[in-house]
């Protein structure tokens, strides 16, 4: 599948944003109003900023962005529609939570509930995003039980590292933040590793023979003539194979970046004085890992239609 750069930006940026927002919601649930007004304000603005940036960038890959509002209508059947609705609804408890946390609304008793609802909606939105992919039976590498957990884990891990970085900048670094980030990062690494192992081990039963139905007696089928002289939309969109040949190297890169993130995050524990530079470096590594992983997620995905275009298996 061709990796749409706007979709990669969307899912990595909004993933980190939702992860951060969810954790802030849980912090609010646990602690009540922000002890540091500026930290609270900046963290919420960054979280909502990343989410908004992501949502806006996701409209760039639309052919008719001006009609994007129509995507809120088909929640009964479409995960993309559900994602759109969930992403917009999340702003309501999130803004309410922000107003409560920062004291704009003087009802501190409600902050716990607002934080919890915000965290829940963040999880729901990322879940819907992942469901768009995992429900596509046409793509074996996406139609997989680990697709959703991996999306949720990346959102949580990048959000946790970002939370640590922002807290450090405001002098609010705590070992607990690093610990949470490390746990989320290890979970992400394990899930992604298992995902790769499982998609590699899966039997590739879809063949050009099965797709064309031309090999009833066990013949071999080969593409003899393509239907057009130049690449068409289908070949551009579904036939993308650039990163596939570098898949092993890129997978290694993602895992190394995640391990480096873990290492740098762990280093903040004995060296809290260096928490600011270390946690910012950790966030850069984590973002790079998420972006590379997302790119690979697209590039490694083989669509069934590639069989009609001569792929032996998909």
């Amino acid at each position, binding site marked *: *599948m061709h990796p749409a750069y706007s979709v990669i930006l969307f899912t990595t940026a909004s993933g980190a944003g939702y992860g951060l927002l969810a954790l802030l919601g849980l912090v609010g649930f646990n602690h009540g109003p922000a002890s540091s007004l500026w930290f609270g304000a900046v963290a919420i603005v960054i979280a909502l900023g990343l989410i908004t940036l992501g949502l806006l960038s996701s409209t760039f*890959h*639309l*052919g*008719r*962005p001006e*009609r*994007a509002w*129509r*995507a*809120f*209508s*088909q929640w*009964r*059947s*479409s*995960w*993309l*529609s559900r994602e*759109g609705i969930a992403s917009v609804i999340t702003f309501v408890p999130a803004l309410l939570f922000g107003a409560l946390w920062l004291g704009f609304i003087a009802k501190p008793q409600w902050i716990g509930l607002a934080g919890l609802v915000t965290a829940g909606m963040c999880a729901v939105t990322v879940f819907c995003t992942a469901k*768009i992919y995992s*429900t*596509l*039976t*046409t*793509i074996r590498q996406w139609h997989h039980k680990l697709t959703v957990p991996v999306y949720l884990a990346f959102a949580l891990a990048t959000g946790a590292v970002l939370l640590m970085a922002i807290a450090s900048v405001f002098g609010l670094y705590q070992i607990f933040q690093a610990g949470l980030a490390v746990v989320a990062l290890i979970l992400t690494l394990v899930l992604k590793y298992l995902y790769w192992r499982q998609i590699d081990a899966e039997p590739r039963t*879809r063949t*050009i023979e*099965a*797709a*064309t*139905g*031309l*090999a*009833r*007696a*066990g*013949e*071999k*089928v*080969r*593409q*003899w*003539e*393509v*239907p*057009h*002289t*130049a*690449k*068409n*939309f*289908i070949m551009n*969109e*579904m036939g993308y194979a650039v990163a596939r040949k570098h898949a092993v190297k890129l997978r290694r890169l993602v895992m190394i970046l995640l391990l480096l993130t873990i290492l740098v995050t762990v280093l903040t524990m004995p060296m809290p004085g260096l928490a600011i530079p270390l946690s910012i470096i950790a966030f850069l590594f984590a973002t790079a890992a998420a972006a590379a992983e997302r790119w690979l997620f697209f590039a490694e995905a083989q*669509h*069934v*239609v590639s069989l*009609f*275009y001569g792929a032996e298996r998909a």
Partner: protein
Amino acid sequence: MTSLPAQVPGQKKLGLVIDLDTCVGCQACATSCKEWNTQGYSAPLNDRNAYGASPEGTWLNRIHGYEVKAAEDEQSRIVHFPRSCLHCEEPACVTVCPTGASYKRAEDGIVLVNPETCIGCKLCSWACPYGAREYDYDDGVMKKCTLCVDRIYNKNFAEEDRIPACVKACPTGARHFGDLGDAESKVSRLVAERQGYDLLPEMGYKPVNKYLPPRKRSNEKLKAASAESEIKSDGKSRVEDFFRWADRLLSR
């Protein structure tokens, strides 16, 4: 609404039956499809770089060619394979649509895209295993086979012209149009008689369009003939005999 219409017994299922035995890959169906649809429901069907080195565009029908071969020493068989929307009974392209632009008609099962409300997210093309939907880069919306919905009910046409453009254009009669929901229809009987099949039935999309497999053909004569001429001399040409001797020598 992108939820699918409820299925009722005796449901009308308009579709195509494509005979892979008689299709000669002439592209007449593809060109007449393009010609009709660039002025009809899907108008305009874009072309990019139409007179350049690498012309491309949106087409609703694509004709592949496949080589089918049972064994290395066997003559291969070329099968021309038109591929377009199969108007599935369970079209995931419709249910994934976030806007309701994609829909399946309750009255005849035709799957359509409303070009006025499509946002061009392309998710439907990801959900389709058959590559039936193509994105129109100029129009910013998805285009697909309409089963010539603007021909088949067109009262301005003579009765015999109320069929899809591709069916009308096919010079070998390899394309048939009709109601596959009616077991007694001409197309249904053809499918039963020739063991028409679904593409990728295991994916569960339940395509309405059917493909008729190429008829069986004997390869034995071809194989035997070529093997004989390589070994035995016909006693007429000394030069040929020399080559046969060289062939045997070099084959050792």
